[in-house]
């Protein structure tokens, strides 16, 4: 075991810090005593040019798609440097390392592995430069946890596929130029084998997006309908029937959950500060033994997540695959996402019931938003119950569910 960094890695950390001191559009927030939700600092419209400038500055450094191969325009960086970059930008509460969130998280890695040269040229630079935003067409009304049962279909017609069906819970659908879509191309094949992956422009004729309002009042996702949408065959990613493999690879891209851990460390810091300024049950909340137990328990879980992530990273550095064991951190994260909002509102006492815009609202309702938004992290990408099945079946060898 060795938790030290090489001279070269430390030099890289310094370079990242210097860059953040100059280019991080949130640096004012980070320097403040209590970070507010982003939109308190300035309105979303004011922020956009700054965010684009941030993305551009990152691109010039080669730090968007940091770990992607240089041939496709990525940074060609190593796993440890990537970890340092994520840690430092997280600590500085900088925006994400690239604005094309889904593009960077799953679409890009899928295209790099399965895409044609033409697809790489067409899509990768636009993801890096945040010109294209992507959404993922996976879930359907009848196919959530049992994703492979999906029914949205595509039928070959000459050099086109004709898509008909529906997707749902599609995050960012309203703002995306492209969708990575899973369709059934062979209804006769076994359910995992009849699936194909298509890259669909959201402005294609016959695509209809209907936003869904979430319990937090926002519209983070949508239903997407496909009414005989025609997509050229060259928009297929991978071979026909290979869609399940493409998706599995794409979802497997980030293994060490470093970005998530850094975000939670920030939440914990904010919670400790919150507990020092709020009173509950007649005393400062930080003096309440139950609050203290919960804060310490949370810190312990976050640290466990960080360290387990480092064990996965080490495994990767030693050339091994990391697989089902990442469900361990996904489950911890799910528990933490719920507890963060719950604890914050408990610390605030009656003030915990006041949302953004209310007289007396604490931190302008930041924690209430967390308490109303956690399902997007906890349920999106596989519910905790599914993660537990994965652990039980693949790590403990228990019989398959049904």
């Amino acid at each position, binding site marked *: 075991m060795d938790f030290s960094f090489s001279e070269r890695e430390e030099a890289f950390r310094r370079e990242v810090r210097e860059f953040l001191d100059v280019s991080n559009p949130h640096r004012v927030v980070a320097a403040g005593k209590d970070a507010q939700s982003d939109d308190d600092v300035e309105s979303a419209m004011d922020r956009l040019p700054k965010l684009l400038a941030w993305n551009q500055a990152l691109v010039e450094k080669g730090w968007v798609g940091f770990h992607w191969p240089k041939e496709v325009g990525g940074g060609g960086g190593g796993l440890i440097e990537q970890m340092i970059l994520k840690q430092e930008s997280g600590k500085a509460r900088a925006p994400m390392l690239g604005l094309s969130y889904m593009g960077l998280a799953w679409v890009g890695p899928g295209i790099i592995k399965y895409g044609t040269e033409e697809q790489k040229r067409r899509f990768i630079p636009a993801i890096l430069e945040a010109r294209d935003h992507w959404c993922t067409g996976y879930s359907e009304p009848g196919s959530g946890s049992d994703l492979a049962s999906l029914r949205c279909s595509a039928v070959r017609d000459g050099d086109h596929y004709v898509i008909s069906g529906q997707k749902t819970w599609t995050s960012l659908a309203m703002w995306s130029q492209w969708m990575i879509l899973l369709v059934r191309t062979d209804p006769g094949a076994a359910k995992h084998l009849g699936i194909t992956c298509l890259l669909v422009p959201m402005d294609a004729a016959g695509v209809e997006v209907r936003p869904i309002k979430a319990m937090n009042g926002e519209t983070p996702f949508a239903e997407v309908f496909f009414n005989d949408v025609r997509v050229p065959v060259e928009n297929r990613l991978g071979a026909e029937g290979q869609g399940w493999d493409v998706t599995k690879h794409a979802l497997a891209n980030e293994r060490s959950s470093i970005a998530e851990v850094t975000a939670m460390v920030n939440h914990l810091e904010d919670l400790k500060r919150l507990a020092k300024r709020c009173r509950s049950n007649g005393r400062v909340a930080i003096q309440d033994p139950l609050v203290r137990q919960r804060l310490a328990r949370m810190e312990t879980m976050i640290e*466990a997540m960080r360290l387990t992530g480092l*064990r996965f990273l080490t*495994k990767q550095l030693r050339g091994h695959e990391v697989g089902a064991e990442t469900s361990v951190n996904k489950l911890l994260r799910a528990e933490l996402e719920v507890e963060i909002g719950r604890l914050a509102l408990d610390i605030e006492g009656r003030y915990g019931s006041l949302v953004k815009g209310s007289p007396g609202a604490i931190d302008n309702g930041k924690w209430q938003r967390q308490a109303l938004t956690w399902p997007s992290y906890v349920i999106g990408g596989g519910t905790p119950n599914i993660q537990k099945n994965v652990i*039980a079946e693949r790590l403990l*060898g228990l019989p398959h569910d049904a």
Partner: protein
Amino acid sequence: MDFGFSADQEQLKAQVRRFLDSECPMDRVRQVMAAKESHDRGLWSKIAELGWPALTVPESFGGLGMRWEDLVVIAEEMGRSLFPSPFLASAVAARAIALMGSEGQKSRWLPLLASGDLIATLAILEDSDDLSAAGIGLVAESDGEHVVLSGSKMFIPHAQAAGLLLVAAREHGGISLFAVPADAAGVTVTPLRLIDQSQRAARVTLAAVVVESSDRIGEPGAVWSDLAAVLDAGTVVLAAEMVGAADAALRLAAEYAKVRKQFGHPIGRFQGVKHRLAEILVDIESSRSLVYFASWAVDHQEDPRGAVSMAKAYASQALDRAGEEGIQIHGAIGFTWECDAQLYYKRGRYCRNLAGSPEYHHERLLSVQGI
């Protein structure tokens, strides 16, 4: 940055595993549970032959000079087998002498501890069950050459097997540590009856026990912070043992869930069972990460207390859950004496509050940060 076992550590782990599988199956553990003896002398002489007591003793004093994190590799395997032995207690006492003792004390005791000819244990805690220095009331009175120790110690791990007791005493308003032969006049060791019969602990009474002032380890009245650091290193190996025990309890329950059929299916197919097993695995992997890191931290971090507290707190939770659920998943057979599930549960009950409960360590985690 590298967070995994080295090839040497993997090899050590495999050797220890082979030995425990062949020499310490559960039948042997049950023999020790039923026995009146202070410890299993046969097992002790075998591990002494293999050189285990020498592993973490410095090379200049007859040891192999391995790191504390290597001991954690072994401790986890020992926990898996519920290895009934004063081995870890003695290793922690040896660490105290190695870090705090004079050259003379080290030359006198460490070679004996390394060869396994002597077993030692730390005698710190008293009736108050207070882990802080304030809990130590046993008094040392010195006339320059001799020191007279009077008072009693409680919950002393494996005291009945130990030839040497390292006794914490109040002196000059602070805490001193003394090397006291267990057969010194005035020392009485009274075995306790423990909820975990595979373990041993005793109450130790010192009635005006006279030792030489050269038996004082470290400065008079000024050893508490060093001693607390040694105790923390001990807490890490304890937590490693607990992770191993939890993992064994989980595997036992999972194997049973694969073969026990109800409603026409193995019960491991039902989510009510499989999800509980998955949750235990999450706790075990998480606490394992914390324990490995803490084992590194005790030798590399200036203040490893936070890392140690997190490891012990989470390991307690993991073993609590694995022990309790392990019984429930077995159903009625889990309640029987013959079923091994109960043994892990008892280990969990015994270890949870040993060296600090999760609640104690949660509180300490915040207080060391000044919160």
